[in-house]
């Protein structure tokens, strides 16, 4: 087992880090204030292939592996958590289900635009009454002639206000519930009856667009059903398995970024006649943080590697997200602490990183849901 990255993966890290430092970091604080979506950056990410890393070139992806993808999301998140999730939600939650579950026609129609970044994607599962209990879908899809009519609302949808393509699940047969009663659909922004509702004002990841989706007699052609009737819950759960690798990478990046900034600050800040870096109590805490960060990294790469090998990665990705998200919250909180009063102000980026970190413990499956996934693997579902 070789724990070193391949030449390609090192090069991806180098490229995305440079891109993040030049293009993303300079505008991160401003966009956090204005809540403005970074369109220019998203466009450039598309041009360079960052929005389709794990998809084959024949579909205009970059032809890369999932560890490279994880590295890219990490490097973006290291300077700005919002940009990290813009990439991750798009790549894992929209492009992936179409690529993994779609027919050849659907793949050809939708994947190139998404993988190239010409269009942005989003995933609509969560509803006001269906969060962790995702199976409790209240959005309904009724078959009629050559199409389905969707009625309902989705909430907390990342990229909601900016996406062109949506993978949406709805209840097609309430009596069957999660086992055959839910179906997935590819919905385009322009479909009749589809609109964007409220934009959320969040604690963090301000530049990421999080909105409500409203389906009011929304007409979806039959050929846009993704997977078979009743397979929707499986589509959603398998999608989230991969999405977790992305969010874990976002959490890791946020943690690493906060840690790096804290190291710089501690080397510069002097109190009691010496720099903070010379105080053993603080050194020990930094060592603890580093250990947790490295552990998160390896768990992420392990899950990504399983995915590349087409092995079962469901538990591995849950473990990775659980640990990385907790690490992000822990590291960023300490980072603010070690910056002292300055860390609490917007002069330094660590307060933003701490606010950004919190969501990683919540979305794409709360830490509690991750524990359910892991416990089911330990004890079996019965």
């Amino acid at each position: 087992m070789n724990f070193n990255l391949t030449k390609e993966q090192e090069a991806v890290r180098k490229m995305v880090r440079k891109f993040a430092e030049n293009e993303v970091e300079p505008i991160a604080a401003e966009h956090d204030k204005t809540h403005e979506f970074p369109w220019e950056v998203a466009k450039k990410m598309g041009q360079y292939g960052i929005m389709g890393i794990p998809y084959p070139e024949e579909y205009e992806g970059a032809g890369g592996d999932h560890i490279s993808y994880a590295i890219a999301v990490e490097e973006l998140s290291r300077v700005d958590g919002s940009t990290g999730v813009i990439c991750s939600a798009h790549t894992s939650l929209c492009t992936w289900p179409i690529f993994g579950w779609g027919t050849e026609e659907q793949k050809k129609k939708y994947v190139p635009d998404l993988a190239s970044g010409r269009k942005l994607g989003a995933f609509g599962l969560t509803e006001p009454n269906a969060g962790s209990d995702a199976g409790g879908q209240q959005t309904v899809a009724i078959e009629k002639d050559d199409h389905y009519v969707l009625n309902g609302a989705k909430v907390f949808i990342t990229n909601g206000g900016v996406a062109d393509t949506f993978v949406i699940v709805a209840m097609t047969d309430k009596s069957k519930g999660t086992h055959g009663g839910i179906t997935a659909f590819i919905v385009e922004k322009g479909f009749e009856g589809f609109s964007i509702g409220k934009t959320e004002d969040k604690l963090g990841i301000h530049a990421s667009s999080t909105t409500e989706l409203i389906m009011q007699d929304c007409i979806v052609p039959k050929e846009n059903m993704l997977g078979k009737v009743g397979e929707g819950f499986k589509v959603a759960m398998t999608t989230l398995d991969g999405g977790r690798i992305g969010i874990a990478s976002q959490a890791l990046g946020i943690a690493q970024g906060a840690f790096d900034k804290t190291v710089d600050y501690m080397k510069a800040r002097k109190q009691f006649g010496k720099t903070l870096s010379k105080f053993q109590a603080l050194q020990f805490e930094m060592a603890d943080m580093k250990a947790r960060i490295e552990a998160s990294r390896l768990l992420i790469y392990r899950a990504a590697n399983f995915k590349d090998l087409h092995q079962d990665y469901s538990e591995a990705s849950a473990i990775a997200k659980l640990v990385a998200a907790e690490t992000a919250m822990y590291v960023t909180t300490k980072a603010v602490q070690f910056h002292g009063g300055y860390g609490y102000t917007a002069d330094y980026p660590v307060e933003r990183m701490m606010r950004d970190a919190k969501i990683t413990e919540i979305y794409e499956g709360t830490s509690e849901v991750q524990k359910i996934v892991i416990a089911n693997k330990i004890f079996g579902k019965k």
Partner: protein
Amino acid sequence: MAYKIIVCAKQVPDTNEIKTNPETGTLIRDGVPSILNNDDANALEEALKLKDAYPGTKITVITMGPPQATEMLEECLAMGADDAILLSDRALGGSDTWATSNAVAAGIRKVVAEEGDFDIIFAGRQAIDGDTAQVGPQIAEKLGVPQVSYVKEFSIDGKEITVKRALEDGYELIKLQTPCLLTAIKELNTPRYMFINGIYKAMKYPIKVWNAADIGVDLNTVGLKASPTNVFKSFTPKPKEPGKKIEGDTDNDLAKNLLIALKKKHII
């Protein structure tokens, strides 16, 4: 119109990241990453812009260096270059700029022999380790083509090239024809990043590695022993002294003493 472009590039230590030992003043070279030289990235970018405008244009990047210089060539390929050649041979080691230009010119002649004449050679103005700005013009002399250095703006129409050449206080507007050699400065353009799909392709690309025999260069014109300049001594300046308080009885004295201190250290 499809052009044949050669880009001369060098892998250099990132001197912006170099630190000195504050006590001894010696350079800390460990952990300093190697990069594509900044001005050479501008040179490559101008070639890539030309290729964007004229599809079918071929860009060949050539470098003289140790085996690890292939990393830099991979980066150039990932940015969009078509072909990459490393000139590497013990016999080339220790070359000064004259010897280097002989080797690179020989390498370029081999490319010409195999693929036909080039239209433009783009080189960076200078490398951030050697800082001489000599190799570009010397390659142009060895190949017998006209040169324009310090290029800050470039356009081409068929065989007619128009460039702005930077002076300290302005520029010269110059017209010339292909074939020629141009050296690029930072103001010329903003280099693109590697493309993600470019990275995967570049790592698999069979980079050509040529030795002295392959390029048929006269061994009496390359390497340490043939170089007309040799390094006698190399050293670092004394480490930065702790801050000095400028003394003076009047404000005029203070100003004068400050300027004298700055001038003596060649800071101004």
